[in-house]
Structure formats: structure tokens, C-alpha cells
């Protein structure tokens, strides 16, 4: 495989976008941990299907949902374990069960037969959690198909209210992915209008699709930093993800998409009285923002959004890497420094390979049509 060409960004938007991309890479689950999570949930699935399993006859299948499915994982603030969500779908009609509680019990009893799962199992309201210390929390949501609606609609049990709730994680993921592709579609359209026939290369297409995912990661990270002292007031990930995906206008760069999404959030809170509603696009009967019935929760969100808007604009206006970095750190915390360092290492790498150039006004660049930067060694005092 040919090594990728090292490029140093040559405009403000590109340099800021590179820093933001590095922040997201710092926050998201590593490929190794991702593979490990896949291995873990596959093992759980095998255990449910194994000979002697009481649930094997219901054909359980386990698949990822939420951030693991749509590629927007963010390392939780102040701890090491990612929260990864999975659905365990059983093929039977919901009315064949006495109560929603029985579905949770069924899954629990089978997991308790396993020596390891038994010791790391934790019961939650709608799911069962396997706690892998220093790795991740594997949240398994038992579900059965909603045959009356079909498609990928599910019933999931709610322990507190002993009722069935509607859910459609596959439908949600498909909707989100379709929103991600808006930018790509606009790009293809503009190429068609310019009569450029050449197809968009896969790498570029993947980056185009990822713009919205990066925005979601940044918003979730901002939420974790902003509400670190009052986590109960923090908006839930699905609300942020949905709002971002609805507001995304197909911008090709992360900074432009952030600006557009943040402006939409401000518009939303400025024009919603007494509160905004965020409905599940895969099930409009579900109010994802039901917590905002509590006025204090909604006020915390609205205030947070206005502050985010102010700080984001300050970051966009700042000059000097150290000043941009300070502004971004207030929004996203520690990973900003690592991102700046990675960018600096790219430049140093170009310099060591004699690929660094300098353009007018002194801008360092990897573009070939400029004056080369010759070797030197910065010296200390005396």
C-alpha cells in the first residue's frame, strides 16, 4: 500500500478542521477496543444460542445500536469505560409473554448461568449491563419484534413501569446514515453541474460522510465537559445526535457544519416556548426530549446552547494557535492539546523529510510550488 501523502493544512478552515478531526480520533473507541467489543458481544450471542440454553429456541441475535452502530462513540468524561449499546432480539410475539419483566428475567437467567457474566452482570431499567473493567460497559437491550408494524420496529421492556416501549434502532441508524450522505449528494450534484465526470474517490467519500459524525462527537464531548458537575441536567446523546442530523445542511467541512448546526440549535431554543420537542425520526410517537418536561432540565440545555454559540464564535475569531487552543479547550477539554501536538508533529515530519515549503507572508505549507525550508537546528542559550 502506498503511504499517504503528508499534507499540512493551508487555510484557517482546513487547519481548524484538522484539529477537530484529531480531537474526535482521540475520543472515539480505538479499532482494537472496537474489535474486542465485537468479540465480546459475539461470545454473548453464542452463549445464548448454545446447547442447553433456554432462550436458544427464540433465535436470539445481537447487534450494535446507538453510537457503536453509527460511528459516534465518545470516551466518557473522567472514566475509561465506553458505554456500548446492543440489542438482543428474540423472535417471538410480545403477547406470548406474561409481562415485560419476564423478557428481562429470561435474558438475565441465561447470563447468570455463565461463570464470568454472573460476576459482571448489572441490572438496569431497560437493559442488562456487562461491566468489563477498564474496557467498556456492554449494555444489552432485550427486545422482540413489533409484528403489527413490521420493518425493524421493536418492543422493549421497561422495568420501572412494567410496560412495553416502542423502539427502532435499525430504523434510526438508517435515517442517520441517510443524513450523513447529504454532503456527498451535494458534492456529486455540483460535480455533475460542473460537468466533471470523474467519480469521487472512496477515501474522500468516507470523509464526506463522516462530517456529521464528527459534529455529533464534538457536541457530545462539549456536553460532557459543560455538564461535568451537573450530569443529571445534561441532554441525552440521542437528542444531540438527532438535532445535529436534522440541522446538518451537507457542509463539506467540520468547522462549517459545526457553525451551521450550532446556529440551528440557538434558533431552536430562541423560538421554542415553553420548550422544544425532539421526536424520534424512526418513530415520531416517541418524544426523545421527554426529560425537558422538567423546566430546569430544559433551561440548562437552552443556556448551554447559547454559551456554546458564544464560545464557538470566539474560537473561530481567535488568532494564534495558543489562543485558538485555549478557546477550544474550554469547549472540549484535554484532547485539544493532543490534537495540536499531532498537527505540530506532522509539520516537523515534513520538515525532517525536507518536504516543508514556505509561501508568501511566511505560511508553512506542504504545497510543492513554494520556497523550501532548509535544514537547521534550533539552539538554546549559549
Amino acid at each position, binding site marked *: 500500500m502506498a503511504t499517504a501523502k503528508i499534507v499540512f*493544512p493551508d487555510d484557517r478552515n482546513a487547519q481548524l478542521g484538522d484539529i477537530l478531526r484529531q480531537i474526535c480520533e482521540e475520543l472515539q473507541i480505538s479499532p482494537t477496543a472496537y474489535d474486542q467489543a465485537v468479540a465480546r458481544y459475539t461470545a454473548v450471542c453464542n452463549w445464548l444460542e448454545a446447547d442447553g440454553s433456554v432462550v436458544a429456541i427464540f433465535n436470539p441475535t445481537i447487534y450494535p445500536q446507538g453510537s457503536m452502530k453509527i460511528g459516534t462513540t465518545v470516551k466518557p468524561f473522567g472514566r475509561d469505560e465506553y458505554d456500548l449499546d446492543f440489542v438482543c432480539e428474540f423472535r417471538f410475539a410480545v403477547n406470548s409473554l406474561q409481562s415485560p419483566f419476564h423478557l428481562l428475567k429470561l435474558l438475565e437467567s441465561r447470563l447468570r448461568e455463565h461463570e464470568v457474566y454472573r460476576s459482571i452482570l448489572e441490572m438496569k431499567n431497560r437493559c442488562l449491563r456487562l461491566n468489563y473493567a477498564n474496557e467498556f460497559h456492554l449494555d444489552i437491550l432485550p427486545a422482540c419484534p413489533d409484528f403489527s408494524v413490521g420493518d425493524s420496529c421493536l418492543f422493549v421492556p421497561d422495568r420501572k413501569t412494567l410496560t412495553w416501549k416502542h423502539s427502532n434502532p435499525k430504523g434510526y441508524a438508517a435515517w442517520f446514515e441517510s443524513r450523513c450522505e447529504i454532503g456527498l449528494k451535494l458534492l456529486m450534484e455540483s460535480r455533475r453541474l460542473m460537468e466533471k465526470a470523474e467519480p469521487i474517490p472512496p477515501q474522500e467519500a468516507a470523509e464526506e460522510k463522516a462530517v456529521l459524525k464528527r459534529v455529533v462527537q464534538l457536541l457530545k464531548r462539549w456536553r460532557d465537559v459543560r455538564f461535568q458537575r451537573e450530569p443529571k441536567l445534561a441532554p441525552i446523546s440521542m437528542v444531540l445526535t438527532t438535532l445535529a442530523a436534522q440541522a446538518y445542511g451537507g457542509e463539506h467541512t467540520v468547522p462549517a457544519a459545526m457553525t451551521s448546526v450550532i446556529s440551528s440549535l440557538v434558533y431552536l431554543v430562541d423560538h421554542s416556548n415553553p420548550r422544544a420537542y425532539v421526536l424520534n425520526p424512526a418513530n415520531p410517537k416517541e418524544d426523545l426530549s421527554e426529560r425537558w418536561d422538567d423546566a430546569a432540565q430544559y433551561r440548562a440545555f437552552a443556556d448551554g446552547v447559547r454559551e456554546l454559540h458564544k464560545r464557538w464564535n470566539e474560537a473561530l475569531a481567535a488568532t494564534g494557535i*495558543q489562543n*485558538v487552543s485555549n478557546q477550544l479547550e474550554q469547549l472540549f477539554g484535554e484532547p485539544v492539546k493532543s490534537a495540536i501536538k499531532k498537527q505540530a508533529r506532522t509539520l516537523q515530519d515534513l520538515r525532517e523529510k525536507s518536504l516543508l515549503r514556505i509561501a508568501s507572508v*511566511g505560511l508553512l505549507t506542504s504545497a510543492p510550488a513554494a520556497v523550501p525550508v*532548509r*535544514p537547521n*537546528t534550533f539552539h538554546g542559550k549559549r
Partner: protein
Amino acid sequence: MANGKSFLRRNAPSFDQQVYRMSLLWPKLALGQVRRQVEAIWQGFLQPSPLSESYLITLRFRPDSNPETRVVSPELRVREGFKDLPHINPDGSLCLNVLGDWQPWMYVADYVVPWVSTWLYFYEVWHATGNWLGGGTHPDKPEHRSD
């Protein structure tokens, strides 16, 4: 990284050639004071990266001595938690190179100006992160830690 090709015995550019080459490559660095054959001083702005500040710098060239660069504004500041600036000469000029990096056959325009921009970039990164990531001598100093 001293350039050890002195056996080629290249001819050193004349004073006027140095001045001309500067005007060619860096028209926005204005030639201020000039005493032919003795000293030329340029002043102007350099911005090392798109997000960076523009720095007003002066560059002094004298035949047979190391060119001297200073940042006029914004004033260079010591980062919180550090005692002094990295890679600065005792007189406050930038320490861009070790002895031997600079040779009389070199053009100030081709060699020194790019070094200044690189210095300014790593200065900003040092302020942002506390690490000097541009390499150089004095690796024992705290800003050279690469963590």
C-alpha cells in the same frame, strides 16, 4: 543538521545579491536601514500558519556574521510555569541555528526567513501545549519532553 558541503567552495553571494534576492522572494519584508557592504535590516510581518498570529519581525544581515532576527510584536511571552523562552539568545534575538547551519554562500531569503517562520510556529505550539516540538539542541530542557 550542519550542512557539510563546504568543500564545494561555492561563491558567497554579494551584498547586493542578498538584498535583491530578499526583494524577490519577500517583497513584503521592507528594507529599512541599509549601509552597503556593512549591514541591511528588513522589517515586516510573518504568519507561520493560517491560525497563527502575524508577527512583526526584523532581520539584520551583515556579511561574515550570523543573521540576527527579532520579534517586535506581539511581544514574546514566557509560558506560565516556565522560567524563560526556548531557543532565544541572551540578547533576545531568536536562536535559529547552531554554528555551521549558516554559511556565507547561503541566501538570507532562502534560508533564514523560512527558519523564522518555523520558529514562530513552534513557539505558538509551545504556548498551547508546553512542549517544544521543533527539535533542536538542549533536549534536556522541560519543553523538549514529548509527552
